[in-house]
Structures are given as structure tokens and as C-alpha cells.
């Protein structure tokens, strides 16, 4: 422990030592980049100085930037996707603060996925990173016409869908629980609604979303595979607007506007599905309940030029039920209070206090008897993140993060059982990090950093220590006392070398550590899957990822081609023993198995970013395996999500100023599954014999979707658009499940049944804004 701390401090001091001495005669240009019309701050805008080709900076998550340079007269060039580039003369006699205000582009054309700007020589050395443009995704066809962030990122190489129409996703061979999904910095534990068919993100309330596939900066941590960083809109601080959408399955509305013009604003956004209304209309299903809703709210207040406060919250809930007798509901609540403080024109501080709560409840009722299952995970999270614009070449980011987790696993109660109050467990997760973005010269950028993550077991339930499945000893801690601490160092580095104006190569290594684990015995995620923290038996999951990349621009920068390869090694992966009753067993740790994993692959992406036709073609070649003691005789086997080939093609074409059409085509190798290799009759029933786990394949999956968007001519206030889409144009019956059963007409014959979910799902959505 002490050793680790010492190493960490050494790295920090080395990092600072390496900083070239700050030039004293320099002055600082700092400020915020904003949308001129709405006042919304702009993330990742590029600020360049024409006279100093080496100088430049990217605005941070709050639109803040800071640049030091010698006194003089300059021309600043500020650019951002979807905005007209701003060219502004600046006279720098002393340090000044200037807010740049950018105007949105007149043309409607917007690109869905934007990993690098046209002038990307300033972009950080980040690898495997894609940013989703929320206003452009409405043109990508999706099932039920509900534009959806999570379904759009599944069209990127290296990101795979958890199943037909499902919002769950796997990144580079990782599990669905290995993605850190952040909504305004608050972790979202279950990012899906309605058993995965919708994501919890109401796209009208989202400003920006970035996915980082394993090589994230040290400020992120806690999950192995990826970071999906979703930022909510701040709200228009100039004028009131109402946005909304009417769809066949759901409708939504958002209101935003200034609380005090130029100073503060708010946004309120709500959404509800109404599939249950259709159920009510049928005699058979009229007592059934099936809906979800969610609410996003955010407000910000500019206290003075140096201080700004944001408050944001999310509340979402799903309800499913069969009459009075059976119901299940689940949902996330998150709340974030953030305080931006510009300590000096070089030092930016953000302090966040975050609360997050995920719970589910199952109710069973039968006459006078009832039965309930509840489970809950609660986080209180304090974060401080400093950005130090040390000089033109080094931008340092450092800070800490402390999370108190309270995890209550499935607890059963009711009239017919012994209600065992499980006390739940507390865990304290602490992290310290430091990362430096160093621009060695115009060609070489290095992002390097270190994260120290620690997890301390705290009191609550008894911790049993197992050896070969047998309890060896037990530890009982008081609520507020501390047990074992796991400490891990997570070194990370990415480098970007620009060979010329068009081409660069990248390389990176990252270690990620995960202290919370999702226990699920079903193939698809279910709301009742439980989270569990580290314990005396469960060790932190560790992933080491090595990646190499190549980016080049083709045809006058109209096209961009990216190739990335990765190799990932996973430790302390968790699974269950066969036949284990995981939900009711008194200590779930008695039925867990541990092992390792590996994943490697090649990802190719060709994007067209300019012109009437935009879109991309992505291809992934990959392999994902696990090796767990007690499964498959301890030999390597394919993970379920191992799909050798994965292709996605997305195209959006502007026919004229009113109509645009778009199409999506996806193809992937079927999931790795286990088919029987023989059968036998036992007590009159047909049972199946199995060999190696996941050695077989589901049939290949492919699908074409199509949509057309009609935008009415913009009048002064009202703006409306219609979207018509057809999911699965050629009606392929993609296998959702393959099952084996006796032929009802001849029970000695075995039938192989393919279940397909969606053929031809048409939808219409009306989107409005005034």
C-alpha cells in the first residue's frame, strides 16, 4: 500500500518536473466558447492562433479554454463541428478573458459521428474515441422511430449490440457491465428501459456523448471496457424554446430558457411510452402494465465571471405488471451539483457532488399472501478535477474521486417466507489521478497519466472467506469500520504522431480496474441482475489494453479512414457454477467462479464527412474468449458476444432542402452459443447432451433499415419535421433464439425452432420546435 502511494507520488512529481519552465513574459488568453444563439457552452471547440501554428487548445467540458502566449496582436480562429468558424482579431497587452460566440451553420447537413475535426492537429492523442452529434442522429433510422444514442453507437466498429433491438452493448469483448456510462458525471447502473429496447437517454435532453473504447484518460475509471460520457444540455440562456416529438410508441417534450438572460438557464425534458394504452384496448391484455417514463432537469447559474453552478437530475422508471398479482419496476435516479471555479486564468476547477441510485422491486401477490424482492445500489460521490494550462505545451489534469457505495443485494420479504433482512454492504472507492497532455511539437502529442484506485470493504453483511467453495472463516465489520483495501495503479499512455497533414499514427496502453461487478445468470441483461462489490473472495477485475492506430484523410479530406487494432487481457472475471440458485442462495459468493479473458481485433472505419452524402462503413474482425475454472473443463471458450465479423454501413443523403433519406445496413457473425451434440431419454423426457461451451454459432445476423425525413421550411418560430422509417426492410427473420424440442406430432423427432422478433417495423415520428 505504502509502496503504491510512493510510486504514485513519484509519478506526479516527475510529471511536474518534466514541465518546461513557464515563460514569464507570456500573457494568458482565457474564456469560454459558446453558442451565440442559445448561450450553451461548447465542448471540444478548437481555438487556434493564426500567427502561432504551434499554439492551440481545445475547450473543456464546460467550454473553458486557456492559452498562454507572448504579448502581441493576433488572429484567433475558433472552430467547432456544426458551427461557422469564427475569426477574431485580438490585441494582447496583458492577460484577458474573451468569450467566443459561434453561430450555427445555416446548412442542415450535420455529421453523426465526429472523431476528429478538420483541423485535428490539436486534438488530444486519444484513441478509440468517437463523439456522437446528437442533432444529427435523428436522421439515422432506428427501431420504433425513437432516436437513440445507444443504438447509434452500436453502429461503430468495436461496439456490439447485446441483441435484436437492444440498447445494451459490448465494447471490444467486454461485458455489458464493463461500460462506464455517465450522465453529467453520475454513473447510470442500468442504461436501458423496457428490457433493453430503449435507452435511458432522452436524446432531446442530451448535448454531447463520447465513447472511449478502453484508452480513456486517467480522470475516468472504474470500468474495464469503455467510457460513455453523456452530457446533458444546459438550456438556452437567451430565449425560451419548446422541443418535442410524437411517436407511435412514445412522446416527449422539453422546455428550455433563461432564468436570467445571459446568466443562467434551465432545461426540463420528459418522455413516456404508451404501449400500455394499446394493451388496454385488448380484452386479453387489458390488465397488463408496460411503460416507462423519464425526466431530465438541469439548471445553471453564473454567480460571477469566475464561478458557475450547475444542478442536474435524472429520474426514470419502468413498470411492468400482470394485473394485480405480479409487478416489477425499476429505475435510476441521479443528481449532480457542480461548481466550476476559474481559480486563475490558467487553473480551472470543477467540484462535483453526485448522487446515484438504482433499484428494482418485484411484487407477487396471491390472495392474502405476498412476496417481494428488492435490490438497491446507492452512490454518493465527491469529485474534484483540476485543469492546469501550464503553458502552451502542457495541459495537466489532476484530482480525486471518492465514492461511498451502498449495495443491497436481492432481499426477499413476504408473508410466506422468512424475511431475511440483508444488511447490504458498504464500500469506499477512492481514486487519485494525474494526466498530462504534452504537445512535444507540431507532430507529436503524448497523453500520459496514472490513476490510483482503491476499494475498501466496509461493514454491513458478514463477509465469508471461501476456499474451494467451503467457508474457511468469516469477517463481520461494523457499519462504519473498514476491512480489506484493494489498491491498484492504472498507468495509461497514448501517443499521436502526425506523419503529415493528412496522416497520423497512434499507439496506446491502458490499465483499467473495476471494483463493482454485475452478477447475471441470463444471457441478456435483466433488471434483476445484481451488482456486488469486491470482497475477500471477489478481487478487482483488471484489463490491460494495448492498441495501435492509423488515421488518414483521403480525397481532399472528404473521407477519413481509421484503422485500429487492440489486444486486451482480462483478469479476475466472474461467472457462476452450473445449476447454482443465485437469487435465493444465502451467500452468492459461495457459487461464484473466477477466471481470465482475452480479446483482440482489428477495426476499420471509413467516414465521409462532407457533401450531400455523409455516413460511414465500419468493419470489425475480432475474437473474445474466457477461461474460467469450473466451466468448460477449465479450457478457453468463446464469450457469447464473440462475433468474428461485424459490418455496419450508414448513409445519409440530402435530396433537397426539405427531404433527406438515410439507410443502415448491418451484418454480423452469429453469437457463440452451445448446441446439443446428442440426446437421450430420461424418465420419459428428452434431454440433450452438450460438449464444449459456445462452440457453435447462431445464424448470421443482417438487416437493412431505411428512413426519410421531411423538414418543413423554417418559419420564424415554428419548426417541424416528419420522420418515416422502416426497420428490417427485407424482413429477414433474424434468429433471436434457437431452441430444441420434441415435435408435437411425433415426439421422437427433435425440432429445431428459430424465434425471430421483428420483421418490418414501420414508424412515424413528428418532431417540433418553437
Amino acid at each position, binding site marked *: 500500500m505504502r509502496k503504491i502511494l510512493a510510486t504514485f507520488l513519484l509519478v506526479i512529481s516527475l510529471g511536474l518536473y518534466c514541465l518546461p519552465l513557464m515563460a514569464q513574459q507570456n500573457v494568458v488568453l482565457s474564456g469560454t466558447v459558446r453558442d451565440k444563439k442559445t448561450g450553451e457552452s461548447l465542448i471540444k471547440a478548437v481555438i487556434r492562433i493564426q500567427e502561432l501554428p504551434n499554439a492551440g487548445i481545445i475547450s473543456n467540458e464546460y467550454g473553458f479554454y486557456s492559452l498562454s502566449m507572448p504579448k502581441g496582436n493576433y488572429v484567433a480562429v475558433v472552430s467547432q463541428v456544426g458551427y461557422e468558424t469564427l475569426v477574431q482579431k485580438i490585441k494582447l497587452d496583458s492577460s484577458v478573458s474573451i468569450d467566443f460566440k459561434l453561430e450555427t451553420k445555416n446548412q442542415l447537413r450535420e455529421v453523426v459521428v465526429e472523431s476528429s475535426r478538420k483541423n485535428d492537429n490539436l486534438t488530444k492523442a486519444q484513441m478509440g474515441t468517437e463523439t456522437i452529434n446528437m442533432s444529427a442522429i435523428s436522421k439515422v433510422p432506428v427501431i420504433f422511430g425513437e432516436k437513440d444514442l445507444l443504438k447509434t453507437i452500436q453502429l461503430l466498429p468495436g461496439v456490439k449490440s447485446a441483441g435484436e433491438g437492444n440498447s445494451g452493448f459490448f465494447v471490444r469483448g467486454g461485458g455489458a457491465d464493463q461500460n462506464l456510462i455517465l450522465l453529467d458525471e453520475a454513473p447510470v447502473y442500468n442504461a436501458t428501459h423496457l428490457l433493453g429496447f430503449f435507452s435511458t437517454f432522452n436524446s432531446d435532453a442530451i448535448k454531447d456523448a463520447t465513447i472511449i473504447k478502453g484508452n480513456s484518460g486517467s480522470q475516468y475509471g472504474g470500468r474495464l471496457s469503455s467510457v460513455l460520457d453523456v452530457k446533458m444540455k444546459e438550456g438556452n440562456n437567451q430565449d425560451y424554446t419548446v422541443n418535442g416529438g410524437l411517436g407511435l410508441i412514445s412522446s416527449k417534450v422539453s422546455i428550455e430558457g433563461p432564468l436570467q438572460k445571459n446568466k443562467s438557464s434551465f432545461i426540463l425534458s420528459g418522455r413516456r411510452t404508451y404501449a400500455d394504452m394499446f394493451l388496454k384496448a385488448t380484452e386479453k391484455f387489458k390488465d397488463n402494465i408496460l411503460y416507462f417514463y423519464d425526466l431530465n432537469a438541469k439548471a445553471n447559474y453564473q454567480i460571477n465571471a469566475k464561478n458557475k453552478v450547475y444542478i442536474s437530475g435524472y429520474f426514470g422508471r419502468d413498470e411492468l405488471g400482470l394485473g394485480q398479482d405480479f409487478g416489477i419496476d425499476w429505475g435510476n435516479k441521479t443528481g449532480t451539483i457542480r461548481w466550476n471555479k476559474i481559480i486563475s486564468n490558467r487553473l480551472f476547477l470543477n467540484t462535483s457532488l453526485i448522487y446515484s441510485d438504482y433499484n428494482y422491486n418485484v411484487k407477487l401477490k396471491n390472495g392474502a399472501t405476498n412476496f417481494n424482492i428488492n435490490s438497491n445500489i446507492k452512490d454518493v460521490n465527491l469529485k474534484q478535477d483540476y485543469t492546469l494550462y501550464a503553458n502552451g505545451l502542457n495541459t495537466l489534469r489532476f484530482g480525486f474521486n471518492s465514492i461511498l457505495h451502498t449495495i443491497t443485494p436481492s432481499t426477499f420479504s413476504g408473508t410466506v417466507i422468512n424475511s431475511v433482512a440483508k444488511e447490504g454492504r458498504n464500500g469506499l472507492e477512492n481514486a487519485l489521478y494525474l494526466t498530462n497532455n504534452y504537445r512535444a511539437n507540431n507532430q507529436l502529442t503524448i497523453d500520459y497519466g496514472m490513476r490510483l484506485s482503491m476499494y475498501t470493504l466496509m461493514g454491513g453483511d458478514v463477509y465469508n472467506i471461501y476456499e474451494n467453495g467451503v467457508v474457511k472463516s468469516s469477517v463481520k465489520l461494523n457499519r462504519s469500520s473498514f476491512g480489506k483495501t484493494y489498491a491498484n495503479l492504472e498507468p495509461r499512455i497514448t501517443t499521436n504522431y502526425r506523419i503529415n497533414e493528412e496522416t497520423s499514427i497512434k499507439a496506446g496502453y491502458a490499465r483499467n480496474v473495476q471494483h463493482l461487478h454485475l452478477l447475471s445468470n441470463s444471457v441478456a441483461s435483466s433488471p434483476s441482475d445484481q451488482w456486488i462489490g469486491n470482497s475477500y473472495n471477489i478481487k478487482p477485475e483488471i484489463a490491460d489494453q494495448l492498441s495501435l492506430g492509423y488515421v488518414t484523410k483521403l480525397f481532399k479530406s472528404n473521407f477519413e479512414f481509421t484503422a485500429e487494432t487492440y489486444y486486451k487481457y482480462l483478469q479476475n472475471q466472474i461467472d457462476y457454477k452450473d445449476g447454482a440458485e443465485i437469487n435465493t442462495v444465502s451467500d452468492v459468493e459461495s457459487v461464484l467462479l473466477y477466471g481470465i479473458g482475452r480479446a483482440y481485433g482489428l477495426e476499420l472505419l471509413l467516414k465521409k464527412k462532407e457533401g450531400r452524402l455523409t455516413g460511414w462503413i465500419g468493419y470489425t474482425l475480432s475474437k473474445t474468449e474466457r477461461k474460467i475454472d469450473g466451466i468448460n473443463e477449465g479450457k478457453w471458450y468463446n464469450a457469447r458476444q464473440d462475433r468474428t465479423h461485424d459490418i455496419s454501413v450508414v448513409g445519409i443523403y440530402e435530396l433537397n432542402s426539405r427531404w433527406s433519406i438515410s439507410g443502415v445496413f448491418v451484418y454480423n457473425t452469429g453469437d457463440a452459443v452451445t448446441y446439443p451434440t446428442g440426446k437421450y431419454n430420461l424418465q420419459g423426457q428428452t434431454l440433450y*447432451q452438450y460438449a464444449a461451451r459456445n462452440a457453435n454459432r447462431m445464424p448470421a445476423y443482417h438487416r437493412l433499415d431505411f428512413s426519410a425525413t421531411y423538414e418543413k421550411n423554417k418559419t420564424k418560430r415554428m419548426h417541424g419535421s416528419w420522420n418515416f422509417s422502416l426497420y428490417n426492410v427485407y424482413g429477414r427473420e433474424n434468429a433471436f433464439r434457437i431452441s430444441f424440442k420434441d415435435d408435437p406430432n411425433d415426439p421422437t423427432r427433435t425440432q*429445431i425452432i428459430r424465434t425471430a422478433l421483428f420483421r418490418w417495423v414501420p414508424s412515424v415520428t413528428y418532431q417540433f420546435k418553437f
Partner: protein
Amino acid sequence: MKKIFFLISICATLLIGCDKEISLVLDNNEPVLVIDGSITDQAGPYFVQLSMTSPINNPTRVIGVNNARVFITDQAGIKDSLEFVSNGLYRTKKIRGTEGGTYNLEVMVDQKKYTASSSMPQKVNLDSLRINTFPFNGEIRYSVIPVYLDPVTLGNSYRFIQKINDTIDPTFHIFNDNLNNGKVNQRPLRGGDEKLKIKPRDNVFVEMQCISNATYIYYNSLDQQSGAGPGGGTAPSNPPSNIVGGALGIFSAHTVQRKTITIR
């Protein structure tokens, strides 16, 4: 928990599910020996069925193994050499099953030896059967609750075999006392599938078996794999068996009680 998956599959069906028979090219494994043996607290003889697995595309039938030598020994040292009946079925001659007794099975086939051991739990009395009704999708559904008082010590496991008018319900009804230790059981036997709905005037027969933990894991594993969750429940594998030597199946010493109820 099962009910959640049930509900999920209903939702999935609402979303226009569509089933079609397809053909697949499947690997065929070497045939493997399957042992299904039991010993109960009822009067003998007790039976051990030996058979071989067959390829998926062949007709399902019992391919008996007729050249085996089968022995069951109890803890008193009585060794019973089972006699061959027909098509892989072997019958005990003298051994007597009792509550609390431990039994060892030994099977010799082509110089290969397979062994298993099972202890018969103490019997928990099946007091009665009662009818449970619940509304479901606009109609009244029926199910049967086996009424018994679970003993105060934790670790009892039960298996129920349900027949509706002589048609056997293929569901594996496997209970334990993780949640209701020491209480009167109020959990119903899930009412078969759509085709095997329980209706008024049906005769429902229930056999209750008090089983060992190994038998519980075996049948619970089969039950989980039959789960109808999206993508098909847990990843299937051969259920963990108490047979040593590489055979499939189970050797179970259990108590047996039977009761019948008429739905009205």
C-alpha cells in the same frame, strides 16, 4: 425469478415474435452412457436404467445398455447385484431403502467403472394438496400447492412430479428452503405450459420427493436451461451429476409420497 423470465417472454411475444422450424448442421458426439438410478423409502424393487445418447436427428428412444453389471451397496454392507429386465433396465433383488440411509451404486460396462453415492434425506410429510387460483390475461388460472411443513434445519430440497389427467407435466418442479425454512409451503407448482393448462374437473396427481442437495443441483440445472428468457436462459451444459466416471444422469436416494386432487 422464473416468473420474470416468463413475463419477459410475454413482452417479447407482444413484440411480434415468430417461430419457425429450421435445420442446422450439428456436431455429433460419441455416444455416452446415461445412468438413471433411484432408491426410495417405498418397498422395492428399485430400478437403474442404462442407455446411450444418440444423434439429434435420430428418433428419440431409450437405447438400452444390456451387457452391464450393476450393484447397489448400503451402509450396512449389503451388496445387491441387480438383475437385467429388458432394454437397459436393471432391478434390485433384496436391498431396502430407508430414510437416512446412504447407498452406493457401481456400474461396470465394457471394463469401465462408474460409481455414485446418494443419501436419502428424512421424509417431510406431505399433508395435503390445495388449489390456488389467479387471474391471468382475463381468465382464471389454476395451480396446485403442496402443503408441507419444512423442518427447522436449513437445507431441505424437494422435487415434485405433476400429472394432469395422467399426462406428465414436463416442467422440473424443484424447491428448496432457502427462503421459507421452517415454514409451511405456500409456493404453487407452476401450472405447466399453455398446452397443459389445469382446468376445472381435472385430476392433478403430485408425487413429492425429498431429495439430496446433489439431486437438487442436477434438476435445478435442467430447469434453468429450459428457461425461456431472451436468448434462451443460461448457457446450456450437461447438468452437474453425482456419477463419477464420465456418465450422464443421476443416482438419487429419495423419499416418495403421492396425492391427487380434483380441481373444482
